[in-house]
């Protein structure tokens, strides 16, 4: 899929995500909007996957470590054919399998259960290590939030990936500069990420994480070392009044805001 088509798919996913947040009255819309371009690039261009065979042994692995943006993940998976798109309307409804964090025992395409932060990267290290041990050709991707990198478990996994020589692993940090309660800078500022990751033996690429033309090649990049992508994104990307503010971590738009946001996201669907 070409960049223009990917951008259109990303707009469609944003549109459906916004609708679902409004209908469910919940979601993590800010972080969903920042990550959707990355999810789109992965699922509609980069990942080698078979939606009708979600456990295919040669599938590329993707771990959504920032599990709270499950809705964006669900919309992406459904659009890619892992389960029916109509099911998105059950998001957060009683007994729906689409709860606030993804469950791999119920949803095809989900590899491991996430939600508590700092879990995805260690699991992804294990997946990549397994490929090294078995000679499997799959590549493992993991998407974390920038605030999430404050979890110590990530810093157990980062040197392990280098030690194990996991050049079949790509960490994407959704660097939208805001965590739940405040900006990263005001909380526990890990930025800049590049020197820290490089010091641990990773190769680092910095991109505009909302620009498809930069995302795709970064995801395809390979080298002798584990790959990290510091994806500079905007929280709430695509919806003017949500962008770059801490307010929209998990706030739900009111009817008027919803109308404005929907109109903005409806352009070029």
């Amino acid at each position, binding site marked *: 899929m070409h960049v223009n088509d990917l951008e259109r798919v990303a707009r469609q996913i944003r549109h459906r995500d916004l609708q679902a947040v409004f209908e469910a009255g919940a979601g993590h819309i800010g972080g969903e909007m920042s990550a959707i371009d990355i999810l789109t690039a992965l699922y509609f261009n980069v990942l080698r996957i078979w939606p009708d065979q979600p456990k295919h042994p040669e599938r590329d*692995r993707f771990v959504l470590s920032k599990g709270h943006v499950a809705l964006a993940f669900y919309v992406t998976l459904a659009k890619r054919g892992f389960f029916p798109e109509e099911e998105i309307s059950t998001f957060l409804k009683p007994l729906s399998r689409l709860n606030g964090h993804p469950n791999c025992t119920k949803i095809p395409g989900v*590899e491991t259960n996430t939600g508590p932060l700092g879990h995805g990267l260690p699991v992804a290290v294990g997946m990549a*290590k397994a490929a090294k041990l078995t000679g499997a050709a799959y590549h493992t991707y993991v998407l974390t939030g920038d605030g999430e990198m404050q979890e110590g478990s990530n810093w157990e996994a980062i040197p392990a990936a280098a030690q194990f020589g996991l050049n079949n692993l790509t960490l994407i940090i959704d660097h939208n500069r805001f965590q739940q309660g405040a900006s990263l800078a005001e909380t526990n500022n890990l930025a800049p990420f590049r020197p820290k990751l490089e010091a641990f033996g990773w190769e680092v690429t910095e991109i505009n994480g909302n620009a498809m033309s930069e995302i795709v090649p970064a995801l395809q990049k390979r080298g002798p070392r584990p790959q990290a992508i510091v994806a500079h994104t905007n929280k709430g990307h695509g919806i003017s009044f949500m962008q770059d503010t801490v307010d929209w971590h998990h706030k739900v738009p009111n009817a008027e805001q919803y109308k404005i946001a929907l109109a903005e996201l409806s352009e070029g669907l």
Partner: protein
Amino acid sequence: MGATVMTAPKLHDCRDAFTAVLERLGAENPKVVAVCNDSVGSSKLGGFKAKWPDRLVNVGIAEQNLVGVGAGLANGGLLPFVCAAACFLTGRSLEQVKADIAYSNANVKLVGISSGMAYGELGPTHHSIEDFAWMRVLPNLPVIAPCDRIETAAAVEWAAAYQGPVFLRLSRVGMPDLLPEGHVFVPGKANTLRDGDAITLIGNGTLTHRLLKAADLLAAEGIEAKVLNMATVRPLDAEAIVAAARDTGAILTAEEHSTFGGLGSAIAEVVVAEAPVPMKILGVPGVFAPTGSAEFLLDHFGMAPQAIAETAKALIARKPSRV
């Protein structure tokens, strides 16, 4: 008994039984990998490492990563045995065990080494007397504490064949052989090691042989105690517990664990709902243990065979007299 000469039984370190089976499984199945946190020595993985250096995944001193990596290796089609001191494996990485292993239903075998108070004088930071409680509340996760090298080997064999997560709780304290060679491990099934009608003594791990000794002491006084070895804390053998309550009218449990939330608590949950009888739970009574070896501390907390026998007699006295 006649002229039988009593000799001290030979004691075995269950870790040796674990690694012997692991190395055999490793030879049969290239998917078997061992994962550890710098614990090659204490987990007795030296032999495995010598045979298959690549398949020994040492993440260093990093237990959250240890358990997460285990889940990822299983996702990649391998059969990981994740080995670490039980106190760190369960306590340090509890949330990884919950989310990455149990909730994700990952095919990972968690092997808690040197469980209970095996680290003795190193103190409560290194004791693992909370692990039954922490592990048994997690869905999908069988919790198993074998009583000797034979049951250890059988449980490891079973765990490798089972599709899904398992927590094996092994000791480093020497234990005598109690089960017959060739014993086949059946999860959720207790073994009756001695029959009796006055009371049932239930334990697992390092306590089973102490219960058998207590039963010998009771027998010398004409009191016949039934002894159940209940290696599986979850799923629990509720049927055996109910039958024991009905047949003997009193239950005494003992475990190298806190009296809060462990085997005794699990048994009490069944007894109180299905067959209420007088019951007593022996273990570490909700305190941080003082300095001492594991054997010393078990004695200290009322789990020397003689003390167990005395507690049993007091419990028998509480049984309602039959009309």
